[in-house]
């Protein structure tokens, strides 16, 4: 059977969103295992990267869940249809029972919307995240989430079971936060309400987000304290961070008229002084936090996907996360504004700034009201502001590079932020 499947793999991989690149010339099956009667597990290598596949088959025609789901179809040979087992509720439930034998479930639905892995929801109670591309070493998301849960930080979905193979993480089972919604959607809900009003002050608008932002700030601060307690404090390395920031500056902004001022702003990262470094979230924005009935939850500690595993596991300044979230408030306000045909209106520009300012301040109030941060930040509030500006600028420069490569007409978002940050 493996041989049969192997023939289909180059074309199949090329159709997957989680596969980086064009159709590979060669796909090698590195390892495989039969999990029960209908479920096969394969580890394959293509273009130097490893992927895991879960395959099942049927002889009874195309099942309903494959209709309109062509990319899940691997191929047909001798009347047997081979397809991705993760779209098949029965096979997926078998897989979950295999990974978490104590859990009884009866329904599965795919979560959808993800790039690098696939998430399945069981009975709206458990979620199984299956990694598609397999890296060596521990998965930082599982590692950090488990450590935070163990340290008593309640704002993560503590793993119920994890799935590993020769030291590599294959998947994880976590509680599903039923009824939750991500911060990005919540922020857009607030912004749409605000833009549709004639109000200038977001505090007066019904969909005000500030109290949520403040609670999110508090959860973020407690996350940093818990990360420090669970995974250790290390000496901060402002010089090394600055060197990386300057490299990026040169990459994306070489020759821009504001480059000298940007350099000065970035240099302020030195004002971190001897504040400690800790494991951080690393890719912190509104899309990574989920509002559930029990408050805010932090998701996806994988770090920036473009970086190596070693880089992602390195300690950094919590300012990196805080700056990431502050940039996210700005993005939300601009993206919601761009939804509107009357985008250019000056009132909307003012509203966007007012919304961003209010929620930024509320987030920071919630963050710095939390105890236990002393070792992680400079003591002086001017230093804190300068350090945050440096990290925000660094993030905005990253965004500028990204937008230039992928969405040039969005460049104005980081451009506007950069011009604010460099002019103090």
């Amino acid at each position, binding site marked *: 059977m493996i041989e049969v499947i192997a023939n289909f793999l180059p074309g199949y991989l090329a159709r997957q969103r989680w596969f980086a690149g064009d159709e590979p010339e060669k796909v090698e099956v590195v390892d495989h295992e039969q999990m029960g009667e209908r479920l096969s597990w394969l580890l394959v290598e293509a273009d130097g990267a490893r992927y895991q596949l879960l395959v099942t088959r049927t002889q009874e025609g195309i099942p309903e869940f494959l209709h309109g789901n062509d990319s899940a179809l691997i191929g047909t040979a001798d009347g047997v249809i081979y397809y991705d087992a993760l779209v098949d509720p029965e096979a997926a439930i078998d897989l979950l029972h295999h990974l978490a034998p104590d859990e009884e479930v009866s329904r599965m639905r795919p979560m959808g919307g993800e790039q690098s892995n696939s998430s399945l929801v069981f009975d709206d109670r458990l979620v199984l995240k299956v990694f598609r591309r397999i890296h060596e070493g521990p998965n930082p998301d599982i590692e950090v989430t488990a450590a935070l849960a163990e340290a008593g930080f309640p704002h993560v979905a503590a793993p119920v079971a994890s799935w590993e193979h020769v030291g590599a993480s294959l998947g994880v089972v976590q509680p599903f936060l039923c009824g939750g919604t991500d911060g990005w959607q919540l922020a857009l809900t607030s912004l749409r309400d605000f833009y549709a009003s004639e109000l200038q002050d977001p505090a007066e608008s019904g969909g*005000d987000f500030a*109290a949520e932002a403040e609670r999110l700030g508090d959860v973020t601060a407690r996350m940093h304290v818990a990360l420090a307690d669970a995974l250790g404090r290390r000496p901060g390395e402002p010089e090394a961070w600055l060197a990386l920031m300057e490299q990026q500056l040169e990459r994306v902004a070489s020759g821009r008229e504001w480059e000298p001022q940007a350099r000065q702003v970035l240099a302020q990262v030195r004002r971190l002084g001897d504040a400690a470094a800790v494991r951080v979230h690393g890719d912190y924005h509104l899309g990574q936090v989920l509002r559930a009935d029990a408050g805010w939850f932090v998701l996806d500690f994988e770090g920036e996907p473009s970086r190596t595993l070693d880089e992602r596991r390195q300690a950094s300044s919590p300012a990196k996360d805080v700056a990431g979230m502050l940039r996210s408030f700005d993005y939300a306000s601009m993206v919601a504004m761009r939804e509107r045909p009357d985008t250019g209106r000056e009132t909307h520009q003012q509203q966007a700034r007012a919304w961003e300012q209010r929620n930024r301040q509320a987030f920071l109030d919630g963050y710095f009201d939390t105890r236990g941060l002393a070792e992680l930040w400079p003591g002086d509030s001017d230093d804190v502001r300068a350090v945050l500006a440096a990290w925000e600028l660094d993030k905005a420069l990253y965004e500028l590079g990204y937008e230039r490569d992928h969405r040039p007409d969005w460049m104005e978002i980081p451009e506007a932020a950069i011009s604010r940050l460099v002019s103090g």
Partner: protein
Amino acid sequence: MSQPLELADPRWYQHAVFYEVLVRGFFDSNDDGTGDLRGITDKLDYLEWLGVDCLWLLPFYQSPLRDGGYDISDFFTILPEYGDLGDAVMLVEEAHRRGIRIIADLVVNHTSDAHPWFQESRQNRTNPKADWYVWNDHDHRWSEARIIFVDTEKSNWTWDPVREQYYWHRFFSHQPDLNYDNPEVQQSMFDVIKFWLDIGLDGFRLDAVPYLYERDGTNGENLKETHDYLKRLRKEVDSQFPGRVLLAEANQWPSDVVDYYGDGDECHMCFHFPVMPRMFMAVRREQRFPVTEILAQTPAIPEGCQWGMFLRNHDELTLEMVTDEERDYMYTEYAKDPRMKRNVGIARRLAPLVDNDRRIAELLHAMLFSMPGSPILYYGDEIGMGDNIYLGDRDGVRTPMQWTPDRNAGFSKADFARLYLPVLMDPVYGYPAVNVEAELRDQSSLVHWMRRMIAIRKQHPLFGTGTFEVVNVDNPSVLAYVRQEDDDAVLCVNNLSRFAQPAELPLQQFAGRVPIELLGRVPFPRVGDLPYFVTLGPYAFYWFQLVEQP
């Protein structure tokens, strides 16, 4: 004789629609400018038409009326302006004849200082009722007990110059607390309750129950002794008057309130206080979390018990139950919201709270009628009455019921100046625009809509006693849940936003069933394995019965 309604269903209160009536404000039968018990009897046909199952009467006892009748000076006498005992008996009989039950407000914690019990008690330290109230030589005992009416009271103790001692009061200083450590007091309150159940009342709304006892080193709320007394009260009521109901007013956090159900052997019902301001906040914020958060924190209740759910009542919007930091959601939201802040501490009616938006009023009622618990309507809200905040205190929401566009809103034939409070006359909410008569003639009026919703609710017992399960929706503006009991299942989908919204509902467990919209009985496309897609207009809601079809 009144009919023995209780024999029909001893747990009627789990499926009942309650209606809160201000006796003073409902209908004036004798043209003296004040509503009365006969006036309520006169209007029972309207309440029956609406579908009301149980009236809750605000206090009707003899009282100096320094606290809206909650300062009782004689438990066995009707306030003369409201009528007499005969009127009460007639009201009960006429209501029962229509299948409507009646519960009455009863204050067990304290009396008026004009009550003969207190007048006797204060005379000296040795009289027969000397120990019926809580007396002390100094005023620093039980300093842990908070002062509830901080605006008017400086202490829970007040000096009595006659007895030359301090007396204890958790509310106004003219409302001394009864001493429940005294067995004679305990027995006297049993006697009061038996008296009213004997003439046919179907139960009581027990005012301010958490404060019956005082103990050193405690805040004097929710004490074990208080629960023990309520359990004995329940036992007495059940043994002699089965099918009557005790509804506790305990303005506390749900996890504390559930203690008033005991093991199903204390109060039958308790008000769910925190959900009410959160429903308004959910609509204002256009997201479901204010509501789902509190429902997630609401413990299960014992068999045979029920929550009392309401949107508005005769009191101000209160945040009193929010007591510590863990529970500060509403405080942070209100503190940040200038508009909501303005509404705290003043009484508002539903319609002005939602800017007179009919869609929001309907949405909130649809949620009220479909969330776990028995709904309690406040008189006048079913026609969209307004308020008059310039009347001060809580009078703003206690203006006369608006029956017709005629003189005094058809409430009374007395001279206008003699009315206990002026009827509303403003162009938006005034009686020429908002009144029962006009709405009855208009099939699309709010009151007709209410009647239809109540009727639908009654066709499905699951709204009273079914399970409640939130359906996962990514869109934060949509609140969806399934109520289920036996084979019946109803899916409720609510759009909290002023904009149209989409919702994808994972309904696999109901795959194959056909959703039938309950207001129009229109069948919707069958539920399949893929998420069920629904589009909702601004502030729209759907109730879908999920029907198995071959």
